[in-house]
């Protein structure tokens, strides 16, 4: 469904993505982890065209992402959840969720609102439809952001460190929503340090370091017997705390 073939990206002379090859099948959940500055956010942002890359091929359902003409159509099918939520502060939770369905999918306001309410209820926020983002906690905002993406009925959900900006007590309410999504069969790429989540729902875990995809493995193998020295070192650092 999503295919990276020898994707390369440079910021000036800094080679941030080096010959990335990765294929994500329909219904698969791939967790991407790695130290900060490793290129994992850049990698996931390339999928929906928020970042451009200079060499290689990246396709979603066979359509190249690099083509500006495809991009809008592709983005309708790719939900994207940001570390900083990026909810629209001038709109209520429900309006945040229904904006794109109304203006991009051309749903009627009524249809969009009923779908929006349903999805907000699904993420546990049925009573927050009329709240503005600043009235919500971080965890609630991130759940609205997930609902906003889901309301477009995307084929793939991309998560860029969705819990990194949250207070610890709010992380689980967001992860629970993501686990439910994964169980529903959603195709997902998740950049995260939540290894518990990776172990529980990931079909594969990818480790990226200094722009290189060091290792991609099933979670059991990844956590119990990582093949690469750098992976072992990284896991040693983050799992001991």
């Amino acid at each position, binding site marked *: 469904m999503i295919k990276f073939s020898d994707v390369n990206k440079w910021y000036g002379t800094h080679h941030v993505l080096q010959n990335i090859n990765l294929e994500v099948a329909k219904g698969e959940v791939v967790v991407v982890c790695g130290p900060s500055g490793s290129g994992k956010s850049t990698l996931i942002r390339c999928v929906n065209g*928020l970042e451009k890359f200079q060499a290689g091929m990246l396709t979603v359902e066979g359509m190249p992402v690099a083509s500006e003409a495809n991009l809008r159509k592709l983005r309708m099918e*790719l939900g994207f959840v*940001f570390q900083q939520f*990026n909810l*629209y*502060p*001038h709109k209520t939770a429900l309006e945040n969720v229904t904006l794109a369905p109304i203006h991009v999918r051309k749903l009627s306001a009524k249809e969009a609102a009923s779908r929006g309410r349903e999805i907000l209820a699904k993420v546990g926020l049925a009573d927050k439809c009329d709240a503005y983002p600043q009235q919500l906690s971080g965890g609630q905002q991130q759940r609205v952001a997930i609902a906003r993406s889901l309301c477009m009925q995307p084929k793939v959900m991309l998560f860029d460190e969705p819990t990194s900006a949250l207070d610890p007590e709010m992380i689980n309410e967001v992860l629970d929503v993501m686990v439910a999504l994964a169980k529903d069969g959603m195709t997902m790429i998740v950049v995260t340090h939540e290894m518990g989540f990776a172990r529980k729902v990931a079909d594969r875990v990818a480790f990226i370091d200094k722009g290189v995809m060091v290792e991609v493995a099933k979670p059991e193998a990844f956590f119990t017997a990582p093949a690469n020295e750098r992976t072992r070192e990284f896991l040693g650092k983050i799992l001991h705390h």
Partner: protein
Amino acid sequence: MAMDMFLDQLHGMAQYYPVVLKGVGVTLALSFIGIAAGTVAGFVLGIGRASSSRALSFLVGAYTDIFRGTPVLVQVFVVFFVLPEAGIELDSFTAGAIALSNLAACFISEIVAAGIRAVPAGQLEAAASSGLSRFQQLRLVVLPQATRMIVPSLVGQYVLLVKDSSVVSAIGLLDLTRSGWVIVQSVPNGLLVFSAVGLGYFLICYPLLYWSRRLEKT
């Protein structure tokens, strides 16, 4: 004695109320046109100024700098005396309205551009990620947030515009300032007459100032 003279002058001035009313009308009309046209054109220019196209942004910036960097009186003269040379004949009201709207647009353009630039990049990324077109991103996500931020500055600009409109008296237009000139011919007390003119401007501007202060608090 002095008191009698003062009352006489006050009485003399009061007889000119039709002229004053006409002057107030012209000042209000010019201000209203300048605010309305200047805001619309200012948003258009401001969107260009904040555009990711360097060339467009530079062009708009250069244009607005010319008018922000020259006296409004000179601009009014140029429109009124120079454009006719090019075959564009304008009455003084139209000339004044054009000059003031253009100047307002130039200042408002920079305010709008600053507002657009102040909207966090993440907002645009979120809007783009959901498939909104560039125009929809601007209309639905960026401008509503930018406008909220700049309303107090905009209203401040409107106050300046009302006061700047007094320059049209220089091309013979009977606005509030000019009505003072007319009255002072027969009521020889400049201090009194122009204090009254100043009060007139203040009464027009004060509601705007009050509104702007309220907006800044919210």
